[in-house]
């Protein structure tokens, strides 16, 4: 796992993906920080975090699109799959590399919080709660993106499909409200990412939401392992 993790981290930077990701993330979060927080004259960071959901949604597929699709296309997967390592090591090595880069990007929040601390009083528990909410959200999204990347050889297809999938997850709440059957609506709402994330921006640290995001991450990583395993039997 360590070897794959280190290689992926290196590849993020040599391929330029890391720079694009970090730049766009910082730029967009900066804009939301400026207009949502600074110009409103508050130290309340919730507007920033609720806007970041959609930014994360569109940026994470850029991180994950190449992870497995390129391996398959360049046949480098033959090197990985014939090496004496398990499939979980391959998937988790890649997963944690993407997660690490995401955490690096996300940590720009602490720069904003320092600015806020200079200007006024920061509500630290709420800010940290939001920070972790975003972290767990990303952890779940990266697993989804990695899974979709394992399904195709084309990185653009992986990116577009991931964005679409995550967007549908985002729309689950509004879709659910249009469903008249109570039972189905409840099921749909129980899969809602957005409402769970929103709870954090209201200052509630919801442990079940954390468990939910981690479970989603686990399930999609598991599915990715299954896809790799299945391919051998094709």
């Amino acid at each position, binding site marked *: 796992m*360590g*070897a*794959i993790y*280190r*290689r992926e981290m*290196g*590849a993020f930077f*040599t*391929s330029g993906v890391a720079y694009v990701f970090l730049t766009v993330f910082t730029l967009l979060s900066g804009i939301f920080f400026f207009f949502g927080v600074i110009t409103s004259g508050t130290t309340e960071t919730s507007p920033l975090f609720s806007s970041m959901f959609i930014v994360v949604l569109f940026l994470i597929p850029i991180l994950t699109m190449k992870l497995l699709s390129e391996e398959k296309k*360049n*046949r*480098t*997967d*033959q*090197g*990985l*799959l*014939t*090496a*004496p*390592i*398990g499939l979980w090591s391959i998937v988790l090595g890649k997963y944690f590399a993407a997660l690490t880069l995401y955490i690096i990007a996300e940590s720009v929040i602490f720069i904003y919080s320092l600015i806020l601390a200079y200007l006024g009083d920061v509500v630290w528990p709420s800010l940290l709660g939001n920070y972790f909410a975003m972290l767990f959200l990303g952890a779940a999204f990266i697993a989804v993106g990695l899974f979709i990347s394992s399904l195709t050889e084309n990185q653009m297809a992986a990116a577009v499909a991931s964005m679409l999938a995550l967007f549908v997850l985002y729309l689950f709440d509004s879709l659910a409200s249009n469903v008249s059957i109570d039972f189905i609506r409840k099921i749909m709402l129980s899969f809602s990412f957005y409402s769970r994330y929103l709870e954090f921006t209201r200052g509630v640290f919801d442990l079940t939401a954390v468990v939910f995001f981690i479970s989603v991450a686990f399930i999609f990583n598991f599915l990715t392992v299954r896809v790799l395993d299945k391919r*051998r*039997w*094709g």
Partner: protein
Amino acid sequence: MIEVRNLTKRYGDKQAVNDISFKVEKGEILGFLGPNGAGKSTTMNMLTGYISSTSGQILINGVDILEDPINAKSNIGYLPEIPPLYVDMTVDAYLGFMYDLKKCKLPRKAHLKEICDLCKITNVRGRLIRNLSKGYKQRVGLAQALINNPPVLILDEPTVGLDPNQIIEIRTLIKKLGKNHTVILSSHILPEIQAVCDRIIIINKGVVAADGTADDIASKITNEHKMTLRIEGSTHTAEDKKEIVAALKQLDGIKYVRADMEREKGVYDYDIESEEKVDIRRAINKLCRDKGWNILMLQLSDLTLEDIFLKITMGDIMPGAEKAEKPAKDKPKFDLNVKDGELVATEVAEETKEVLEENLPADRSFEDEDKNEGGEE
């Protein structure tokens, strides 16, 4: 060292590999030979655990590749058909990555240096793989397979894309490695297999068509006596040809005679096949002396690996089960030559060949154009 039992792989309806069994002992160099699409790469991918078999068993060093893949894979160094190279890495970074990936315990610096020296890539270690030539990429791929000194090396067409000097170097290297490793290599380049391998397995259409040393296979597959003659007649015209063929056919023990191309002005070549254990050379000599013809060349054609390969893969002839086939008249005929170590098929004009015997076996006249290529992909 490697044991394969009843290995089968199906892709839907297509039977890619069908019930292959063989054993490779320690220190043996085994050559996999077969036309494109015969199932060589599929077999190798199964041996290395990249794909799984539909049925059958593979034991690497006594370990089943499906039951304990990590243990089995740690014994294998694999160079796939397309080397698994990350083109955005330098050679050094890539080999370091493979070193970590294989959880190699050997002293890192010394081990990598040794491998780079062995594969002659020391001078490109700092360069991006993207910028290397195909030959160097191939060698980096080979270096990668050698990391951790695995007892089994599986090399899928290791010399593709190399220039003749490099090919010789790699062959020498493989021979050297064969002393301490068990090597399986695939190729459709016949002289390569012949030069490097102790033992050959010919695979055709997913089944083992022949197994043994080149000589073993040759002795199993044929006991025909064939020769090529160049006889100068008296008139130096096509009339000679008819006369000579007719006279040769009268000799005892001759199975068939075929006039070949005009090699020199007014002089033709004749392919002759005699019955088993009948030496007709003296009779021919006597005939020519009596008629006043000159023998300009007499060449016995022993079966080379090429002939064996072509016989097995073209004619659907299994060892010991030869059957005579008459080539279709409307199909183009080919002249086969070995050029730069590869088979080259050139079309021969129809009229230059006269088929004079009705029951001539399918040997050097080939029915199918696309099966004839010996070139690289």
